[in-house]
Structure formats: C-alpha cells, structure tokens
C-alpha cells in the first residue's frame, strides 16, 4: 500500500541577506489515511515551517510533499489549516466566516440549502451553533478556536493541519478542546497533523509522535508510536502505564538528548 501523505527527503532553507540558513534537512515521513500524527519539538526547530510546507504555503527547497501520489506545490482546501491565532476574519460573523470557505469550496456542487445545512452541521460538531451570528470579537479564545476548527472541517479536507491550535488557551479550555478534537477525529476519521510543544497533548491525541531535533537544519529525530486504545479518557490515562512510558520517552528526547540551548540562536 502506498502512503496517503509522503514527505520525501524534504529540505528547506531560507535566504536572508545573501546568507542561506538551513531550517529543515532530509525530512522523511509517511502518514496513513485516518492517522493522527503530532509533531513536537522546541520552539525554532522549524515545525511550523514543516506544516507550512505540507499546507503549500511555503515551497520546499528540495524533495517533495506527496498527497495521494500527487505533488503538493500550492495551498488548497484539501489541506485545511487551523491557525494558532484562529485567524477568523473579524468583520464576518461566525456563520459568515465558515460560509466564506463553504461557498468557495462547494459553491458549484451544493445548493444554497445544502450549504447552509453543511455549515450548521460543522458548527454543531464543535458545539458553536448557538453563536453563529456573533463576531469573533464577541466570543472567547476557546470558542474562536472551535470556529477555526469548524471552518477547516467544513472544507472537507483530505488532511487537517493544526498549527499549535491550543497554544494560546488556558489549561481548562485547552483540555475541553482536546476532547473535542479527539471526538471529531473518532467520528470523522480525518487524517490529522498537529504541531504542538505540549508533551501531554501529543501523547493524549496522537497515534504517532514525530520528534524533531533542534535547528538549524532540524530533522526528525525519532518517531514514537502511541499504542493506546481509543476512545482515550484523560483521567484514566493519567495513571496508565503505556501513557506514562510514552510521556517519559518524549520528555527524555526533548530534555535529555535534544536540550534546547538558547545561546545557540
């Protein structure tokens, strides 16, 4: 079986004032359909750059991103991104924000009524239907992120890309949203890649955790499978042996073998 998403020997470097700085070096990874993969690493290791490459928002310097054996070279709705700061358009209501995506992606395929139902279904999925007529400034950070997720899901993407989606949220809201994402993943079986720097979050949500070495020229240091049965419940897992072992493995990777050295910047 060929891989659903394949990152084939990807290099990425930026030009800055005539100087070339290597950010990513020789990234190799295959992801199966329906898999939930987290990418974890210290800040500045290029994990967001990697996500942008998969999204097509940035171009690879060498190698290729292959989705169903087709090369990705530009952004598109089949690789929907949930941005860290939600990036909802503040002049549109929650409904209109999702409608912008739905009418663009399904404009020719679905009737107006079908599009309306589809928007409401996605809002229900993130439990935000009650706020459909509010503007982003009128809802909380967690709610905005829920709407951001609904907008991405409404594009019916082949791959859902989450760029530190819970990074700006408080711990309780974050836990709620993690549960929501797990629930959505189990219902829709969407292939998901999530950038995070939270070890617990990575272990709780992922089928596999991709650990990045530090930059410059960062690469994949290790890939850790998380053999925990789903559905997962955070309270039961907090004392689960496998959970703790995975957590320890990630922590060891991040803090013993690839310690973040600030002075290296």
């Amino acid at each position: 079986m060929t891989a659903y998403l394949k990152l084939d020997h990807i290099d990425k470097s930026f030009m800055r004032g005539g100087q070339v700085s290597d950010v990513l070096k020789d990234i190799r990874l295959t992801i199966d359909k329906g898999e939930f993969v987290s990418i974890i690493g210290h800040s500045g290791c290029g994990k967001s750059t990697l996500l942008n490459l998969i999204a097509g928002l940035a171009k690879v310097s060498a190698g290729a991103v292959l989705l169903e054996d087709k090369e990705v070279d530009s952004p598109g709705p089949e690789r929907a991104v949930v941005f860290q700061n939600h990036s909802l358009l503040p002049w549109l209501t929650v409904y209109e924000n999702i409608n912008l995506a739905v009418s663009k992606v399904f404009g020719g395929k679905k009737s107006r009524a079908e599009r309306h139902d589809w928007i409401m279904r996605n809002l229900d999925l993130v439990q935000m239907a009650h706020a459909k007529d509010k503007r982003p400034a009128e809802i909380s950070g967690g709610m905005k992120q829920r709407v951001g997720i609904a907008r991405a899901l409404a594009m019916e993407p082949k791959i859902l890309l989450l760029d530190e989606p819970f990074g700006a949220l408080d711990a309780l809201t974050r836990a709620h949203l993690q549960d929501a994402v797990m629930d959505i993943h189990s219902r829709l079986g969407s292939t998901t890649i999530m950038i995070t720097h939270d070890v617990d979050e990575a272990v709780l949500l992922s089928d596999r955790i991709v650990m990045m070495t530090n930059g410059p020229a960062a690469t994949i240091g290790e890939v850790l499978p998380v053999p925990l049965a789903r559905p997962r419940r955070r309270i039961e897992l907090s004392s689960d042996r496998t959970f703790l072992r995975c957590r320890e493995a990630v922590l060891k990777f991040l803090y013993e073998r690839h310690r973040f050295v600030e002075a290296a910047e």
Partner: protein
Amino acid sequence: MSIQAIKDRKVKPFPAPSKPAEIIAFTARARRRFDPAAISGKLASTLVPPVIVVAIMLIVWQIACSSPTASLPPPSQVWNEAYDLIAHPFFNNGPQDIGLAWRVLISLQRVAIGFGLAAVVGVALGALVGQSIWAMRGLDPVFQILRTVPPLAWLPLSLAAFRDSSPSAIFVIFITSIWPVIINTAVGVRNIPEDYRNVSRILRLNQLEFFVKIMVPAAAPYIFTGLRIGIGLSWLAIVAAEMLTGGVGIGFFIWDAWNSSRLPDIIVALAYIGVTGFCLDRLVAAVGVFVTRGTTAKWEMDDDGLSETRPYR
C-alpha cells in the same frame, strides 16, 4: 458597543437562567430610555460648554468691532445686513441671485463627483501599491512628490486641458483628495495580517475575491481614514478653486461679495462652509463606522501569534 450586545452576551451562553437575566436587561434598558433627568443632563453637559464659548466669542467680537473706525463688521451688523441670507437659505431669484444653501449644494455636487472619482481611483491605486512591491517602488516616489503640490497650482493646467471651469474645478478636487486615499489604502493593504492572506490562499480565492472579501474589509479602517482626510481637503480645494473659476458655487459667492464689499455676507458664507465641512467629515466617519461595523477598535492582532507562521529567522 450597544446595550443590546451586552445583553446578548450575558444571556446566550447560559440558557438556564435566561428568564431572570432578560427581565433585568429589559428594566435596565427601559430605565435608560425613559429617564428624562439623565438625558437632559447629558444634553446639557455636551451643549452648554460650546454655547458659552460661542457667546463669549460673539461678545468679544462685538466689543472689538464696535468702534466706528473698525475695518470688520460686528455681529450685530452682520445680523442686520445679511439677514436675508441667514433667514432664507433656499431663495431663488434668478441665475446669479440664489440662497446660500443652493450655492453650497452646487459646490457639494462638484465635490461629490471629484471626491467620488478620487475614492474609487485612490482605493484601486492604493491596493496596487500596497500589494505589489514593484508598483510601490515605481509609484511611491511619484506620489510623494505630487501630493505636496498645492491644489490651486493644478488649476491653470487643468483649465488649459479641460477648457471649461466646471471640469477644472472637479479635477482640482480629484487631484487634491486622491493622495491621502492612495497612501492610507496602501498602508492598510500592507498591514493585512499574513494569516488572512494564508486563509485566502488555502481557499484559493482569486484576485477579485481576495480584493472584495479580504483586502477591502481588512483595510477598511485605513481606507476610511484616507477618505476622511480626502473629503476635508477637497472641501478646502473647492472653495479656493471656485473663487478663481467663477460660477455659482459658495467659493465664488465669497469672491463676489468681496468685490462688492459685502463683508457681512462673507462672514455668513464662512459659517456655512464651516458647518458643511464639519457635516461632511462626520458623514464619512459615520459611513466608516457603519461599514467596518464597529469592529475596528476590537480587532486584535496578537503579535506573538503571527510570529510562528512567518519565515524562519
């Protein structure tokens, strides 16, 4: 923010206690609406200070210009001699003898055409300059030099080009008011957060969709700042241009009054011009608030949120 918005926010997320919350909100609103003491108090606090200041100014003016040798008329003389102009803004006694309101409307019509063209062309050019680095490099120096040219310096050239006073006046308004629109639009477009651009790229919006759905609303606060400066400048320019081109506008009325030594008429016309300019400014501001739907002040651009999506440094 309105009371309505606060009420909605409180009620919606908690369906259970919606009834008592609604009752409280209603009584609060009712009390606001039917409280004459509060309304009159607020009116007094906004109206009394300017009335006092104007009264003092009139008294000082009256005293200063009362002596028989004074070169300018005192307010009492203005009131007596220009009473017809003050009391009947809409009289119409033939082609050159019409009320000041008509003259203002004629000037406003010229402003509407010139400023309307400047708004459309200015937003389009500003979008181009804000969007394309090469357009900016090519056009920005030209704009920066041309925008410092005073409005009336364009007039001889436009008279030569159009060979008629009315289109020349309109052109002067256009060329005066377009620069702040271009420059502010360009700044607004350049400041569109990278995330909004990424959203549009992921959705594969085409150029026109991006312009209408992302660029214009995102830059709207900047665009309206430019439009507000522009309308102020064009009102400045029309009065000056009409003084030179003639016709029936308010500017020519002042020039005509000066030539026939009717100083009180000039003072009344100045008041008309000032009030009209103030109304124009407020009108554009109100349209801006309506179009940006009051979201302007609440836009958050959390700067650390954007940093991770920028190129690696």
